[in-house]
Every structure is written in C-alpha cells, then in structure tokens.
C-alpha cells in the first residue's frame, strides 16, 4: 500500500468496489462521488475481489437504491450503497428490514445535515442519528485514512456478525478532504474478509433450490419474541469489530479501537466526540497538557451497539467531568443522543471504579452543525467550561447564541496549527485554482515524505463562484480538521477578490502573498486599496505579483492561469527545492494533460517556464498611499436586514452573525439579489438603439434578467436627469411610446446569450448587432449610471399590451433576477418568463436541485417583488415530494377560499349593505378571473371588501380579513428538474397529474441531475454519456409528456425557448389558463451538456431541428371533435449526428468508444424520426377530454335520520 492523495469518498469507494458484487446508487451531495467512482471503475472493467466486475446500478431514488440493495443481499450477494442526509432518511424503512433479517451489507454515509428550517449540503450527524434505531451497526471514521480503514472493517464485520453496518464520516470535512492515505488494497481485504462467512451469506440467500420465506407477517403471539431473538447477534458486534480492528492492525500496522483515548492518563476533564472533530480536540489536548492541564479526548468509533464497557474502560478513573460533544440537534430532547448514551453508561457504572468513589459529572453541547468550524480554540473553551461549578449544560460552541444564551465564548487567538506550510488560495470556480491545488497536493504527497492535506470551500453561486483552498504540508500526519486562519502563504488568484473579500485576514505575520495582478508590477501597489495596503504593512508580509493571465495567453493557454499560479506557489513556498519542484510540476503536467495531446502539455510546460520570469517581488511602501477602500458588500440604500445580515454573509462574515440575526423558521424576505453587486462579467452587452427592432429576444433569453426592456411616455426621461439611450417603440396598440433596453452591468455574467439571440444586424457590417459584447472596463461606469436611471424611469402600464408575444411579454418586470445560476443557464429564462407573466399571484413549490439552489440558497434570493410588494412566494420542501407539496399548497389555498366564501355568504346582508349587492356579486364572480386587468379589478374589489369588513363586528369579519386574499386568483407552479420529475418524484408527479386540480408543473429538463454534477436520469437521451452512464445511455429517454397525456385532461407542452420563444410564451399562458393540471416540459441547456454556453439558445434550436426535442402542445378540450395534440416543430431537418457532435456529452463517447457511439447515435436517429412520425399521427387523433364528476360529500347518517 503506497500512500495516495485521495479524499475519503474515493478511498471508501475503492474498498467498497473491491468488496461488492452489486452497488445500487443514487446521487446526493456529499456522497455522490462515491457512486461516481464505483460506476467509472465498473465501466472500465475493474473487478472486485472475486474477479467479477461489480454491477453498479443507478436507481430512481435512495429508497429505490435501498430496495435494490435489500433484494441483492437477501439473495446472498455482496452489496453496498452510498448516501447522505435525506437519502439516508429515504433508506430507513429498508434498513429496519435489512437489519431485522440479519443480512450483511454496508451503507457508507458522508454524514450531512438533514433539511429542517433550511436545506444544507454540509456535514453533521443529524442524518446518521436518525438511523440509530434501525439495528444497523454504526461505525464512525474521524478522518480520511480512518474512513478508508473503517470501510474495510465495516465490510468484514458485517459478514462476521450478520448485522449490517452503517459506516459514516463527516460530509465535506472528511468526504472531500484530500489527505495522504494508504488505501487498503486487495491483499489486505482478502485477508480481512472470511470466505467461510461469505459462503454462509450466499447459502442463506433466497434460492428456489432451498426455498425459505422472508418478510413474513407476524401476530402479537410471536412478534415480540422473534424480535428479541436477534439480541445475541447485536451483542456480539463490539467484540467482532475489535477483532476485525486488531486483525487489520496486524495487516497494516494501523491499530484502532472501539473508543480511543488520547491525553493525560490522570485527566480531570475528558471530551467524548465522534468524527472529524476529534482531530481538533486532540490538538487542543496536546497543547493544553503541554501547558500543565490534565485533559483528554475519547474518540468514539463504534456508536451502535454502544460500547459501554469499552468506553468506561478507556476513561481515566481520575476524570471529574466528561464533556460530550454532539454534532446534531434534537429539539425537545433532554440532551443530544451521544450525550444521553454516555450519561447512561456512566450512570450505570460502578462508582467505586472512579477516583474518590464518585461518578464523573457529564455535561454536553452541540458543535459543528452544517460544517460549522470547530477549532482548538473552541475546544479550549469547552474544557474551560468543564471547570465551572455550574457549567452550561447543554451548551453550544462555535456560534454566538444571544437568544437562548447557550453558547460558550472562545478565544480565537488560541492556536495549535503547526503545519510547516499553511497555504490559502482564493480563486474562482472557473479559473482552475482548486484543480491546481489538488494537483499540488498530489505532487507533494507523491514526491516527498511529507504529509499533505487539502480542503476546499466553495460559495453557493454557480456562476462567478469563489473558491478558497486550504493546503497544509507537514512532516507529521495532519488531522487538523479546521480551516487555516494563520497562513504562511496566501495566493490571490483573482484581483477582484481583493475588492470583495478580506483575503489577507488569514495571513500570518511575515506570510508570503502572491497576487495575480493584471497590471505591471510597478503599478500594483498603487492599485491596492488602503485596507489591503494597511494589512500588508501591519503583517509585514512579502508580496509577489505576476500577471498570470498574460503569461498564460503568451503560452497559448488562453486565460487559463492555474499552471502559472501553481509554478509560482512552488517557487515561493519552498515546499520543494525549486529545481525539483519545477521538474515534478512538469512531470505532473505530462501526467495530467498527456491524454489531451502534446500541444496541451507543451503549452503548459511553456507556461511554467515563463511564470518565474514574470514573477516580481513587490516592494512595499512605508505607508498607506491609497485613499480608496474596499467596496461595501451592499449599497447604502439596501434594507435594514440586508445591511445587518445579508451584507455580513456576502463579506464572508456569516459565521459572526448571532442567533438573533436569523429567522427561527427559515422565512426570509425575497428580492435581495438586487443588492448583491457581483460584477463578474468581463464583457457586457451594449445596446445600439439605431439597429434595434424591438423584438425582445435579448431580454427573454437572458438567464439572469440582466437585460431589461422598458417602454415609457416620451417625457419620462426628462424626470430621471440622465441621458440614457432610447428609441421609438413600435406598437400599433399604443403608439408614441419610447423604448430603452438596458443592461444591469454589475449583475450580468457576460454569458453572451443575448448577443447570440439578437437578430438585428447593421446592414453595412453584419458583425455589428443591435446588442454587442464589449469590455466591461470601458463601459462599467456609464452603464452603472444608466442602470440606476433606468430603474427610476416609470414604465408604461404593461397591461396595455397583450402578453402573448415575445416582445410584449418582456415589458413585464421579471420577478426573478440576478440569480447565482451558471452563465448561460438554460433553465432560468423560463423561470424569469414565468414570473413576468404570473409572478404577482404565484406560489412556487420548488423541488431540490439547481433551481432550488440558485433560487433559494443564501445569502441572497432572486425572487423579487413588484412596486406593490407582490411577487412569487417560494418554498422548497424536498427533492422527492415536490409535486405532492405543490398540490398541498393548492389544497390549502382552496380550503381557505372555501372558508372565505362561506363567511362571505354568512356576512352577505352586512356586505350587501356596505358594498352593494352588485359589488358583492362581482366579487364572488371574480374569484377565478385570470389575466392582468381582471386580477387587478378583483384586487380592488377585495380591497373594498376589507374596508367594509373593518366596519363589521364579529369573529367572522375578522376571519375573513385574514382570508380575503384568497378571493383573488392564485396560481400554483410546481417547478423542478428532470431528476425530480422523471425519477425520484415520478410517483408523486403521476399522482398529481391524475388529480384534476388546478396546478401547473414546469419541468426544467436538463436531461441529467445537474446540481449534483451531471448524473444520468431517465431523461438522459440515448447516446449521451453522464455520470452513472459512463458507457453512454443505451436506452431512450422517457417520454414524460406522453405519460401525462394518457390522463386526457392534462395540458401538456414541450417547449424550447431558443427554438421558439413564441411557442414557449403561448404554452405558459395556456398552461396557466387551463383549469386543471398543466405540465410544461422545458428543454434546458446545461453546463453538463458540454458546449460553450454562450450558444445556449442556438443549441436549443439545433436540438429541435435535429428532432432531439420536438415541440408540441396537448390542449385538452371537451369538444367531441377535439384534436388536442398540436405538433409545433417541423420534421427533423438536421442530421442527429450533427446535433450530437456539437456537445461533449455525446462527443466524449465518440472518442472513448467510437463503435458504441455510432451504434447509439444511429439508434437515436431512428428514435427521433420514429417519434416524430408518431407525434405527427397523434396530431390527427380526435379525443375529447374526460369529464369530471362533481364533488360530493357522503351524507352523515345521523343527519339523514
């Protein structure tokens, strides 16, 4: 076993793949990459320990994966799965079954927060704690090496004991941390797992040659006894685990115990902890004991069955206070689960076994929820609290709880991080910084005796996201399970980050700072802000600067700066001798880029050679010379909450916000993305009014609502005081108006989709369009002024224009703006359009996925409000339940409306008197009125109703005041991606499709699970590669629209904005108008398709032209001669191969397996022609929508009497 630089997910998957015959998977962060590795290894033919390639199958949900796992192991196969968080919760019913049937298997869990008031993808133990009653053995790993080793122990133990094992480690902190690891190899695993046990397991498997029945139903006479029959098996687990650990130590030299104590043998205070947090505690223990304290830490590896005996044996008898740290919160419980277990163990211990004959005091607290930092300084605070006569119990550590006052204060200057090299790198997701640092870690780990650790922090944006890489190098193994805050090296890979983040706050005094500056070295100092200059002087850092983009361009690498910055790091950090470092870096380039051809290797090597020649040390001035300060996170005019709370999050200071700053129920104000000025574009679109034909295409395709159309009275510009571009608006309905198209320069991502969509050319030079990308530096100041003025321009009432055209739809204000979606995102234009058309009266139920992340991930929210404060009300429940959740919202609304109507009937005399009978009749008649003007009129009636109610006595009037809003039409839009609609939510979606209720469903079909990184769904087309379909999807995409049509009363549309914006607008309007269920399936180009996203819309057009995505609308009608199906796209006119060759998802297969690619593309070509022909025939079919029976209530028998 040679050391490798891998993260826990890869190490664990390697062990699991070798020890499994069946691997059932489903993507979920942060466990997805375990399944991805397993899938790729099987796709490449890597065999398991028994010489066969494991069958890796992606299921429709974690519940499905657990079901398949259950079947496989009950048949006697060696099977496993990987999951986290909600995924684990979906597996719980199967886990009870699997454990109850004493069937060996291992579930590897990258432990993650369970969604409560909010979703969080980050790590804690709330998911695994929810599984503690399943009967699974629960084995916890505290670091990357441990995770690899515990995986081996878990697979061994489950066979030995027949009790299935849940093996868990901390999501992200361990699952995604690169570290120097020796992954147990096949020889070790072969020596660990017993052939005899495997044979027994196989012979217990379901087999008609020796039939048994599993899963019987039992009655009160025997169930209890039978349930107790398994007790000896669970009782045998602790010894079996220790035995496996001991055998593992014999094979590898790495000895583990069920609990491992570290610290003073005569400790008076001991912390009990599970998972990666033990690393920080060990460091603190050593430091404190070195200063004369007597403290210790007990790291727990086996959590279930709880190792009471071993825990008691491991604790020093001298201990007076045991502090139990739980990485979860169980509201309402006396204490968190581990605390209660330890308390129970100590309560039942023999008092005489403790010094002074007294059982130790047990206190406990919560730490580290959702990957909250947990540092040695916090550990010290916990130990200090344990000295108090009346300590807080329970307490929290790592936050400031100014509401319940549970938190402990800590001294952040207490530090124990002694790694020789502590480097922090700030970059963008798109600049390769993280990749370069992973590569750096591998170079150091692979070429020196030193240990290396690399951990990466990402923000929640998908475009322009910031990454922070934390890299430690040391002679000793590194288990510092927290971020670096005293860096010896700080790399700032993007100059703009100096403006938005306090990047030097992590620099230790005397640190080396490397700046990628797009300026000559002699100009760099003067271009720094006063804040940065001051920090540089205060910390006496050495600063080096390079124009990395220029060096990269010179080497023919475009703007790809990763190799340049990597070379500079090696040169400056001294982690390797310079010559050796450059040699190894070039070797790594050959290894990393070799598969891409000599030219790529040569250019990267040239970049390395050029880097050092362009690296300059920046002489620091003696004093601050700049008068400029960093831009505030939000403008001064932002609302109070945004100033107090959101701004801190944007500045990277969210950790400092106290509990009182945050809403207790997760309800946040919308319309906050407008305050987050990211300025991430390098080019922005500039409008040329003289060429504009008022078509609105630039605005409708803009994924970030950063291009707006406004039509206004001619004199309106006089009121804004700024000379902004304008032109006459061509309109037959309302002539004489003026038009401005304006970019929001700080919100544009520079994707260029608008320019691609613009059809208006200069007749004298076709390259000049009505909208053109221009360098932001040349236009930012002017466009900022223009944007501010544009916002002040009072728009003409858009209701004057029918929204059914592309152009007039864009006169409506988007109520979805400036999201963090990818540049060029194919999903967001649909959402934006939806909010333009219906946003002021829409409730959105949003399935988990990309649309819930760019739609609802803090710090800011893109859903916005109009001038009246109305806008989409948005909620995310889960991934799997979204259709049902949305239906529930509808049912809730309808129930409230029924109540409101019944009160109106009861108050009719008073209301008639106050409003007039005709007005009340109009009010009642208008409850379902649709359209801008009718809704506006109904709102006026409701306002009048409210006014009247204030003059009416009684509880009914008060209740109706609450419910009066339900008398105005509200739409429910159920939104989600294909992973939800085609897979995990398909059952619920089908049920809602059959409900006949007035809900609208928008499926943003990217044909993969986009949010988790492009795993295949049932929407993935034939011939495309995707994760979990690395060999190319062999079967056709599911036709969700056809499924929905079978009900006969569901409005169904298949749209692609880039192919037909007119049809898209029509479809959304028709769906909204249809009083039953509507389903709109929207083709959404995605970064996972593998093409330049500036072509997002033209690619959609190609998809339609090739037949990949035919457009249609199925409009149910009760007419006897109805022909509901209308085919909206022409017969395929572009060869499918041409479409396929334009996207890497197809092209990769053409390179990796040309024969299969050709076979699949040929089949796909047949698919599209056959489908088109089928649709063409459907268009001729006459079908009347099924009638709906009226609602009934069963008469109460007593009433009948």
């Amino acid at each position, binding site marked *: 076993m040679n050391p490798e630089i891998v993260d826990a997910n890869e190490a664990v998957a390697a062990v699991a793949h070798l020890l499994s015959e069946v691997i059932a998977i489903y993507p979920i*962060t*942060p466990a*997805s*990459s375990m399944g*991805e590795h397993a*899938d*790729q290894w099987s*796709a*490449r033919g890597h065999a398991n320990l028994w010489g066969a390639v494991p069958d890796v199958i992606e299921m429709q949900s974690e519940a499905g994966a657990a079901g398949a796992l259950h079947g496989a192991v009950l048949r006697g196969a060696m099977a496993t799965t990987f999951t986290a968080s909600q995924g684990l919760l979906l597996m719980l019913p199967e886990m009870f079954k699997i454990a109850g049937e004493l069937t060996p298997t291992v579930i590897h869990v990258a432990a993650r927060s369970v969604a409560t008031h909010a979703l969080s*993808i980050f790590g804690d133990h709330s998911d695994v704690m929810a599984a503690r009653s399943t009967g699974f053995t629960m084995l916890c790993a505290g670091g990357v090496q441990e995770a690899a080793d515990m995986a081996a122990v878990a697979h061994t133990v489950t066979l030995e004991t027949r009790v299935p094992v849940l093996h868990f480690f901390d999501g*992200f902190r361990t699952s*995604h941390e690169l570290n120097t690891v020796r992954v147990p190899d096949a020889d070790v695993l072969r020596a660990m797992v017993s052939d005899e046990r495997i044979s027994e397991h196989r012979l217990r498997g379901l087999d008609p040659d020796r039939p048994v029945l599993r899963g019987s139903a039992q009655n009160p006479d025997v169930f209890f006894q039978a349930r107790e029959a398994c007790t000896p098996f669970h009782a045998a687990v602790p010894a079996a685990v220790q035995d496996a650990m001991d055998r593992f130590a014999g094979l590898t030299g790495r000895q583990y115990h069920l609990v491992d104590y570290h610290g003073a043998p005569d400790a008076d205070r001991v912390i009990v902890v599970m998972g990666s947090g033990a690393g920080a505690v060990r460091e603190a223990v050593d430091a404190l004991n070195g200063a004369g304290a007597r403290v210790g830490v007990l790291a727990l590896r086996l959590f279930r069955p709880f190792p009471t005996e071993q825990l008691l044996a491991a604790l020093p008898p001298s201990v007076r206070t045991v502090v139990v740290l739980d990485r979860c919160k169980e509201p309402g419980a006396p204490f968190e689960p581990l605390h209660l277990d330890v308390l129970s163990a100590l309560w039942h211990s023999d008092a005489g076994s403790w010094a002074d004959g007294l059982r130790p005091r047990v206190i406990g607290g919560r730490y580290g929820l959702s990957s909250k930092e947990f540092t040695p300084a916090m550990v010290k605070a916990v130990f200090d609290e344990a000295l108090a006569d009346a300590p807080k119990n329970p307490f929290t550590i790592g936050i400031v709880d100014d509401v319940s006052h549970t938190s402990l204060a800590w001294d952040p200057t207490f530090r124990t991080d002694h790694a020789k090299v502590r480097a922090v790198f700030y970059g963008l*997701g*798109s600049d*390769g*910084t*993280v*990749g370069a640092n*992973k590569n750096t870690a591998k170079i150091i780990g692979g070429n020196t005796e030193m240990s290396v650790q690399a951990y*990466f*922090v*990402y923000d*929640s944006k*998908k475009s322009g*996201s910031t*990454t922070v890489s934390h890299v430690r190098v040391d002679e000793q193994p590194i288990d510092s399970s927290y971020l670096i805050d005293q860096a010896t090296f700080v790399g700032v890979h993007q100059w703009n980050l100096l403006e938005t983040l306090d990047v030097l706050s992590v620099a230790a005094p005397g640190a080396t700072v490397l700046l990628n500056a797009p300026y000559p070295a002699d100009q760099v100092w003067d271009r720094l802000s006063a804040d940065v200059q001051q920090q540089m002087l205060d910390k006496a850092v050495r600063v080096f600067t390079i124009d990395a983009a220029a060096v990269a361009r010179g080497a023919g690498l475009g703007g790809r700066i990763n190799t340049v910055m990597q070379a500079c790091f090696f040169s400056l950090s001294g982690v390797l001798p310079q010559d050796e470092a450059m040699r190894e870096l070039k070797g790594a380039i050959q290894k990393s*880029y070799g*598969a*891409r*051809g*000599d*030219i*790529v290797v040569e250019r990267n090597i040239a970049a390395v050679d050029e880097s050092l020649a362009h690296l300059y040390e920046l002489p620091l001035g003696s004093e601050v010379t700049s008068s400029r300060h960093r831009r505030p996170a939000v403008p001064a005019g932002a609302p109070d909450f945004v100033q107090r709370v959101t701004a801190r999050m944007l500045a990277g200071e969210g950790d400092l916000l106290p509990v009182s700053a945050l809403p207790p129920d997760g309800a946040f104000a919308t319309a906050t993305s407008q305050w987050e000025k990211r300025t991430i574009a390098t080019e922005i679109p500039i409008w040329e009014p003289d060429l504009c034909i008022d078509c609105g295409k630039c605005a409708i395709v803009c994924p970030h609502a950063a291009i707006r159309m406004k039509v206004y009275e001619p004199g309106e510009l006089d009121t804004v005081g700024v000379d902004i571009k304008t032109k006459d608006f061509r309109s037959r309905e309302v002539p004489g108006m003026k038009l401005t198209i304006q970019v929001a320069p700080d919100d544009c991502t520079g994707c260029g989709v608008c320019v691609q969509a613009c059809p208006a*050319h200069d007749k004298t030079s*076709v390259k000049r369009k009505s909208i053109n990308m221009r360098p932001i530096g040349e236009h930012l100041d002017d466009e900022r002024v223009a944007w501010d003025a544009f916002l002040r321009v009072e728009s003409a009432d858009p209701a004057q224009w029918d929204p059914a055209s592309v152009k007039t739809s864009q006169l409506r204000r988007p109520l979805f703006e400036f999201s963090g979606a990818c540049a060029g995102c194919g999903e967001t234009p649909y959402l934006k359009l939806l909010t333009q058309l219906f946003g002021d009266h829409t409730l959105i139920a949003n399935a988990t996925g990309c649309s819930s*992340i760019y739609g609802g991930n803090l710090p800011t929210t893109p859903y916005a409000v109009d001038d009246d404060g109305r806008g989409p009300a948005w909620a995310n429940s889960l991934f799997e339940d979204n259709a049902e959740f949305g239906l529930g919202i509808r049912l809730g609304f309808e129930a409230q409306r029924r109540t409101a109507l019944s009160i109106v009937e009861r108050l009719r005399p008073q209301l008639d008197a106050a409003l007039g009978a005709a007005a009340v009749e109009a009010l009642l008649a208008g409850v379902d009125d649709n359209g801008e003007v009718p809704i506006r009129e109904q709102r006026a009636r409701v306002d009048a109703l409210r006014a009247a109610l204030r003059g009416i006595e009684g509880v009914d009037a008060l209740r109706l005041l609450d419910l009066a809003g339900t008398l105005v039409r509200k739409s429910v839009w159920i939104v989600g991606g294909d992973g939800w609609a085609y897979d995990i939510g398909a059952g619920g979606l089908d049920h809602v499709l059959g409900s006949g209720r007035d809900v609208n469903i928008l499926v943003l079909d990217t044909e*993969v699970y*986009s*949010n*988790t*990184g*492009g795993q295949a769904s049932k929407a993935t087309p034939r011939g495309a*590669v*995707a*994760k979990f*379909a*690395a060999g190319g999807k062999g079967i056709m995409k599911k036709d969700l629209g056809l499924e929905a049509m079978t009900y006969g009363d569901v409005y169904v549309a298949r749209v692609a904005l880039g192919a037909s914006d007119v049809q898209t607008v029509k479809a959304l309007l028709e769906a909204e108008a249809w009083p039953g269920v509507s389903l709109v399936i929207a083709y959404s180009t*995605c*970064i*996972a398709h*593998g093409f330049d996203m500036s072509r997002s819309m033209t690619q959609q057009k190609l998809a339609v032209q090739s037949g990949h995505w035919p457009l249609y609308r199925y409009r149910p009608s009760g007419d006897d001669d109805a022909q509901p199906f209308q085919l909206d796209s022409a017969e395929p006119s572009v060869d499918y191969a041409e479409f396929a060759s334009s996207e*890497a*998802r197809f*092209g*990769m*297969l053409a*390179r*990796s397996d*040309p024969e299969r690619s050709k076979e699949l593309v040929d089949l796909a070509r047949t698919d599209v022609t056959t489908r088109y022909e089928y649709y063409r025939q459907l268009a001729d079919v006459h079908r009347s929508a099924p009638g709906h029976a009226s609602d009934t209530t069963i008469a109460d028998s007593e009433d009948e009497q």
Partner: protein
Amino acid sequence: MTDLTTRYLGLELRSPLVASAGPLTGDPSMWDRIEQAGAGALVLPSLFEEQIEHESFAASFAYEHGVDMHGEASSYLPDLPMGEVGPARHLDLVEQARERLSIPVIASLNGTSPGGWVRYAKHLADAGAHAIELNLYDVVVDPEITSADVERRYVELVEEVRAEIGVPLAVKLGPWFTALGNFAVRLQDAGADGLVLFNRLYQPDIDLDHLSVVPRLTLSSSSESRLPLHWIANLRGALRCSLAATTGVHDGADALKLLLVGADVVMTTSALLRHGPEHLQAMERFMRDWMHEREYDSVDELRGSVSRENVPDPQVYERANYYHVLHSWAPGPRR
C-alpha cells in the same frame, strides 16, 4: 501489353493513376477496392496540425468543463478515457495502410507551426509511409506578409523537413504564386522530390437567409484540370523532380492529357467519390485503348511529349495563348 508503370518520387508505381487524399482513402474499408481497381498509389487524408490542436483543446474543454466550480459538483461530465488525442489515430491509419496495401502509401501533412511540420513528418515516416506529401494549404491574409516572405517560409520548411526524414518528399501547392517557375525550382533545390499541382482552395459561401459565411465544399469538374495541365506543361522541362497532376482528373482522357504534358502521375479524388473506386478501372481501360490505338507502348513514351519544350509553338502555353483564347471565343447570336 501497354506498360503503365511510372516513377513518382523515386517509387515504382504500376500505374500513373493515384487515389488522392480524400474521404475514400481515409476509409480502410475502401482500400482493397482502390487497390484492386488499379491505383498506382494511395495518398492518405492530410494530418492537419490545426485539427490535432483543435482536438487537444476540445478534449481539454471536456475534461475541464465545469470542474471544481461548485461544492456539489466536482465536475459535470464523467471522467472518461477519450482515446488518444493527437496524431496517434492518424499514424495508426498509416500503419494499417502500409500493412494492408501492396501499393505505395503516401502520407499527407498540413502543418501550422515550423516545429509541427517537422515533428509530424517524422511521425508519419516512422509510421511507415513510403513518402510524405507536404500539403502547403495556407490562406495568407495578413497584409504585412509579402509573397517573398511566404515563399521563403515554404522553402525553409521543405529544407527543415528534408533534413529530418529519409523518405521521399512531395510538396503540394496552390496555383497562386506570382513566379511559380522560380518557386518550383527553389522547392526542388530545397529537397522536394516532387511537386503536386494543384491544391484546391475551399472557398466559403454566403447564406442569404442568415447573412452568414458558411463552408461549402463542391467536387471538382474536368475543366479544372486545365490549370495543372497548363503549369505542368510549362514546368516539365525546367524541373528534374516528379510532377503529380491533381484537381479535375475525372476520366482517362483527363489523365492522358496530363501525362502528355509531363505529369508522372495523375491524382483523382472527386471522380472516385462520385463513381466509386472502380472508376479507376474505366480510366485505365480508356488509357490503354487510346495508347494501344496509337501504338504507345508505355507511359514513359508519352510522358511530356506535349509539354512546352516539346511542342512546336511553346507560346501556346504562354500569354499568347490567353490572347488566342479570348479571340477564339465568340458569343452566340443574340435572340
């Protein structure tokens, strides 16, 4: 029996009809048919340095696309081995052709960088090509670059490649050189064993619906063979190196004419695409019949017999010819 053998680039060919670089010669399933139809040699499609570069960066795009950008997705596409990026597939084609065919296999190369020409020429020679054809296909639009610059660059290129490879070297040219005679001699002196006249420049078209420039590839016609015919006739006497005629060779008559003016071989692509490899048999049959009727025993006998130096009035190949053509063509009567 009429002897059709010829010598080209120092190679003995059984026939002067050569299947030129194109989709057919790049398809191994066509090779046997081409050989059986009587081709004297086969020129594989060009290895384009630009294409290799494009493929490399396309592979990089796929590998790096969306990688490490977001905490939930370390990448968006599976990490697949995408096969060999670079010249390997093309070199494999050369090796296969060399193994499968008994006729000489000529590898064609279009480079973009000085180092690229030499490197890939060596790769092709090492892969077993009997000869290398340097396909000087370049559209020089930079107004700062003079014709002398272009010619000097090409001559140096030939010298550099010549110095590095041992197999025969042909140079394929476009017709747009101001003083082609001088340039041809300089290429020969730089080490070219033969010239291939001429390359066709693929000219783009305009899409009137979208006002966009679109690539448009059309097959050649017989009339296009006049250009190589004209120049081979003029150059034959001035050059000792081999001459290959290409562009517009569609039938036996075209081939014979080009041989008569001095070509050592004639190359055809469009005709084979139109009619299939077996069209070579028809061309050969026509040539044999024509030669038999006129009692030519061999290609050697007729080669160059109507070149500029062998016709009674050489001026027909010069400007006077232009004058004559203009005055011999009369429009039809107006209607």
